[in-house]
């Protein structure tokens, strides 16, 4: 990397720094995600349906999960168990998770019946499915971290299944500290990272258009997406 000594003017593609990894990474990122595609002003006409709102509802619910989880982490267990405000935030955390799964499953149903992996959108679909599975684990470790009879019951019931799978050697559901760390560090990191990739893939490939109904092809315009591509890689 060279030391910049002149004025920070715009760098041309053929400049002396164009071969550096920073320049190449920037060019690749801008080519893959131009700002107008990352944050478009308009969406295709076929998105005028309620079934398309469940993705953003899932995202908003996830934001609430993370936000309330951060508040719980800052204040600690005594606060969320003993104070009324703590109990309220704890409930917000639980119910935002409920909303998250509620909206995510409807989002999943909608995308499944649309065959949303069409049009080179395989990675969008796969990241969504994997995020769903990891989210189940995140919720599961959350139930184990409640520090009540519920969590004791769930952990003692789950240990046999986990041990039978062989995962019990490294994932001990009776180890409260380990479950808490998985719940508040590892799994949220994976869920948020995969969600980020999922959203970026949605922006890159566009929202999948609905199937064209036979006899209605002339009146509908399902391919009006500005990013509807088959060979875009």
């Amino acid at each position, binding site marked *: 990397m060279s030391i910049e000594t002149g004025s920070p003017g715009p760098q041309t593609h053929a400049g002396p720094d164009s071969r550096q990894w920073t320049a190449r990474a920037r060019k690749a990122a801008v080519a893959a995600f131009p700002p107008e595609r990352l944050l478009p002003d*308009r969406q*295709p*006409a076929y998105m*005028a*349906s*309620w*079934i398309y*709102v*469940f993705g953003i509802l899932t995202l908003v619910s996830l934001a609430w999960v993370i936000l309330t989880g951060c508040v719980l982490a800052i204040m600690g267990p005594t606060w969320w168990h003993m104070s009324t405000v703590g109990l309220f935030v704890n409930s917000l955390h639980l119910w935002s998770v409920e909303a998250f799964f*509620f909206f995510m*499953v*409807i989002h999943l*149903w*909608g995308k499944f019946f649309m065959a949303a992996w069409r049009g080179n959108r395989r990675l969008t679909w796969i990241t969504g499915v994997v995020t769903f599975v990891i989210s189940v684990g995140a919720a599961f470790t959350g139930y184990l971290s409640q520090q009540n009879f519920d969590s004791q019951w769930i952990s003692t019931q789950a240990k046999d299944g986990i041990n039978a799978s062989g995962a019990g050697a490294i994932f001990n559901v009776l180890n409260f500290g380990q479950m808490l760390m998985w719940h508040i560090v590892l799994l949220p990191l994976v869920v948020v990272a995969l969600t980020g990739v999922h959203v970026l893939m949605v922006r890159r490939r566009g929202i999948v258009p609905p199937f064209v109904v036979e006899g209605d092809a002339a009146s509908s315009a399902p391919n*009006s997406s500005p990013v509807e591509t088959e060979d875009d890689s």
Partner: protein
Amino acid sequence: MMIVLVIRALVNLNGPGHYLHWGFIQISVANVLLIALMVVVFVGAILIPFRRGKGRNR
């Protein structure tokens, strides 16, 4: 019988859960209600018209 269970579950949630049994399948009434609600919302999301903003043609 099931209706009574459902109403009881709706009215009083401060007690042991109510469960439905069907062969080897066992599920709580609360989960049945939630799944039914999700199906209703899913069907509604497909059938209920989406209001477009004024001046929006596409």
